[in-house]
C-alpha cells in the first residue's frame, strides 16, 4: 500500500511540475477538501486557506482560471517529496503525512525555494480501485509567499 501511495503522490507532483495541470484534479475524489495553509494558521486553528476547495470541480475551476483568466508570468515548480508515512487508517481512509519542498523557476531562470512543508493527506480507493485524495491539507512552513500563488502546491 505504501508504494501505491508513493506512486499517487509522485504522479500528482509530476502532473504539476510538467505542466499537465488539467490532470491534477483527477487525483482527487469528487467530494474532497484541498486547502493551502501555513503552520502558524494550522496551529492557531485559523480555518481560511490561500486556496480552499471542497469539490474536485472547484479544483478544475482553478485550473481553468489559470489557463483562461489569470495573468501570471511563466514559471515552473519542482516538487521534491519525502517518503510518505502512514499515520492512521480507518474504514478504507488512510491518513498520510509527507514532507515536501517546491522550487519555483521563473521565466528568466531565477530559482527559489517557493514552499516547504508537509502534506496532511487522507486517501482512499475510488470506485475503480485507484487511490485518490479525499483530503489534502498543504501546511507550508512559511507565512510568506513570494509574488503570488498561481499553480497549486
Amino acid at each position, binding site marked *: 500500500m505504501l508504494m501505491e501511495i508513493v506512486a499517487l503522490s509522485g504522479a500528482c507532483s509530476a502532473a504539476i511540475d510538467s505542466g499537465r495541470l488539467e490532470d491534477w484534479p483527477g487525483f482527487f475524489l469528487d467530494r474532497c477538501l484541498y486547502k493551502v495553509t501555513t503552520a502558524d494558521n494550522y496551529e492557531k486553528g485559523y*480555518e481560511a486557506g*490561500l486556496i480552499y476547495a471542497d469539490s474536485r470541480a472547484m479544483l478544475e475551476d482553478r485550473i481553468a482560471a489559470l489557463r483562461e483568466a489569470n495573468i501570471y508570468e511563466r514559471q515552473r515548480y519542482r516538487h521534491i517529496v519525502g517518503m510518505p508515512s502512514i499515520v492512521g487508517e480507518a474504514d478504507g481512509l488512510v491518513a498520510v503525512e509527507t514532507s515536501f519542498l517546491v522550487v519555483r523557476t521563473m521565466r528568466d531562470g531565477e530559482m527559489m525555494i517557493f514552499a516547504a512543508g508537509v502534506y496532511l493527506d487522507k486517501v482512499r480507493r475510488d470506485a475503480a480501485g485507484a487511490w485518490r485524495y479525499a483530503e489534502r491539507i498543504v501546511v507550508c512552513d512559511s507565512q510568506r509567499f513570494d509574488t503570488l500563488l498561481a499553480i497549486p502546491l
Partner: protein
Amino acid sequence: MDQSVREPPSGVWPAGLTRVPYWVYRDPDVARDEQGRIFEGPSWHYLCLEIDVPEVGDFRTTSMGAMPVVVARAEDGAIVAFENRCAHRGSLICLDDGGKVKDFQCVYHAWRYDLRGNLTSIAFRRGVNGQGGMPDDFRMEAHGPRKLRTTVLCGLVFGTLAADGPDLESTIGPEVLVRLKRVLHKKVEVIGRFTQHMPCNWKLYMENVRDTYHASLLHTFFTTFRITRLSQGGGVMVGENGVAHASTTLAAAKGPDDSYAGMRADNQGFRLRDPSFMEAVSEFNDSINLQILSVFPGFILQQIHNALAVRQIVPRGVDSMDLHWTYLGFADDTPALRAMRLKQGNLAGPAGFVSMEDGAVGGFVQRGIAAADQEASVVEMGGATADSAATRATEASVRGFWKAWRAGMGV
C-alpha cells in the same frame, strides 16, 4: 538595483498631480526620506487589531515602515505602543509576533519595561559588592523606547510618532469614515493570516489598491463574472487631503454589457463547474458587491462579497515590500456564512482569482521602469483632480495618493 538615480528627488517634480517621475520608485534616498518623513512622521499607521491584544499584558509586534513596534494592553486597559528597541543598546525588546507578559524584559541584559514601555529596572544597577553598576545620577525615566500616540477605530489600532496633530477620524474624513464603519460594524474574528512578498516599491502596490481603473481590465475574473466592471454602478471617494479612499461597486444589472467587447478581460467562454462559492450572502443591507478602502500610507480594508480582510503594507527596501493579510469573519457568523467566507477566500489573497495579478503587476512596473528615471507615469484618467467621482473610470484616487505623499514628503 541598489544604485541611486540620476536626478536628485528634490526640485524635479512635475506640476500638478498627473505625472509621477519614475525615480520615486527606485531611489534609495527617497526610501530613506520616506522612513523619516512618512513612517516616523505625522501619518497614522495601522498597527494591529484591537482583538489581537484583548487582555492586560497581551502584546503584538508590528512595524511602521522599517521601525519595529510593540503594541500592548496596559494595566488600565489602554492600548499603547512603543518602538521595539531597548533603551540600553538597542536590541529588540520583543522577539515574537505576540504573547502575554507581566512586563517586558530585554534578553540581552535583562533591562525591564512596564507594559507602556517605561524603563523600570536595570540589572545590577547598583553593581555587585559595591563595584560596577550604573552611575548614581542615571535617571531611568530619561531613557526608553520612543512612544507612539495610539487610537482605536472600529477595532483597528492605529499609531503615530506625532505627539499632536489631527486625530484619525478627521484625517480620514467623514465620507470614507462611513464606508469604514459600514464593514467593521461589529466584532470581528481572525480566520487567517498570510504574508505576501512583492518585488516592487510599496507605492506601486498602494497605487494599485487605489486604482479603480485597473480592476476590471487586469482581473479577467472580475469582468467575466461581473463582480466589478466599470459599467456597473458605484464610484470612488477620496478625502480632501488625499489620505483616505473608498471605492464601491454595485451588483451588476443582468442585461448584456458590451463595454468590454474585444478586450482580453472579457472572457465569455469561461464558465465555472462549481459556482457555489460565487453565491454571495448579502450581509451589509446594501447592494454593494465590493468595497476597497485605504488609509495612507499603508492600510487597506477589503470587502469582496463576503471575503473580508485588512492588509498592511510594510516596505522592505526600495524595490520590495511585504503585504500582511488578515482574513476576517464576524464573531457571530453563522456556520453557513463562515463556510461561505472560507470558499470566497479563493477570490482574494496571494492566490485570489481576482487579486493574484496585483501581486505581480507591481513587479512588472518595477522592471518596466528600470531605465526610466527620466520618464514619468501618466495619471490622467478622469482628469487632473483628486476628487470623489461617481465612476471608477478614473485615477482620481491615485492622484489623491500623490497629494498625500507629497504633503508628507514636502515635495
